[in-house]
């Protein structure tokens, strides 16, 4: 399937960029005129993925996060990538309420939120190599 539009941006792993990333992603997807609910879901999932990169990927040190949004006729694909620490056990990380950082009052719901709010979620990660999150969302109700 041919993309209708695509964009890619990169930014520093600062917590202030969590809001930047979700606003940019939602603005880009808005051109497809989806419902407000769909945009809200995308905003939330992007926020979770970027927050994970900031806290877990780079452990709040400086690094680069890239975000790519590819718009198709009926869905959007969003890829968020860091070159940080990586995830040792992806299955464990996906478990609801699992967190490696209870000291930060983390709820351990990040991946659960991404899975619930989006239609698909793929996680590619290896220790020392970073993490790539690929999520898709249908833009029309079927």
């Amino acid at each position, binding site marked *: 399937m041919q993309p209708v539009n695509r964009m890619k941006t990169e930014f520093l792993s600062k*917590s202030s960029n969590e*809001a930047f990333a979700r606003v940019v992603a939602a603005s880009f997807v808005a051109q497809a005129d989806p419902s407000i609910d769909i945009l809200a879901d995308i905003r939330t999932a992007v926020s979770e993925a970027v927050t994970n990169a900031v*806290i877990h990927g780079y452990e709040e040190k400086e690094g680069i996060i890239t975000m790519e949004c590819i718009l198709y006729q009926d869905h959007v694909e969003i890829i968020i990538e860091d070159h940080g620490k990586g995830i040792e056990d992806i299955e464990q990380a996906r478990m609801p309420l699992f967190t490696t950082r209870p000291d930060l009052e*983390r709820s351990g719901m990040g991946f659960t*939120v991404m899975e*619930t709010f989006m239609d698909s979620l793929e996680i590619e990660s290896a220790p020392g190599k970073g993490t790539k999150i690929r999520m898709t969302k249908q833009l029309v109700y079927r």
Partner: protein
Amino acid sequence: MLMDVRFKRDGTALIAYIEGEIDHHTSRILRERIDSKFIVEPVKNLIMDLSRVTFMDSAGIGFILGRMKKVSSIGGEMSIRNPRPEIMKMLKMSHIDSLIKLDT
């Protein structure tokens, strides 16, 4: 300003009127402001009014649970007021509504 909070005291309860977006970035600031206010006021209960919260991700869940633990540890109660539908979706998904009194 992505987020702001104002306070009002109602008997033994501190009401925190939160405005804006709650994420990992803003929840750290929010936590400090609420915790430091809660400790100096003669209150034991905490009410969070979310009517003007326009965005909340799972960092907000961690933040709410963290405040609930603090309030419970001194024998107080915490409740949430007036979340918008999109915030309600996050609260329901995390089942926090089974732990905390919710006034809609």
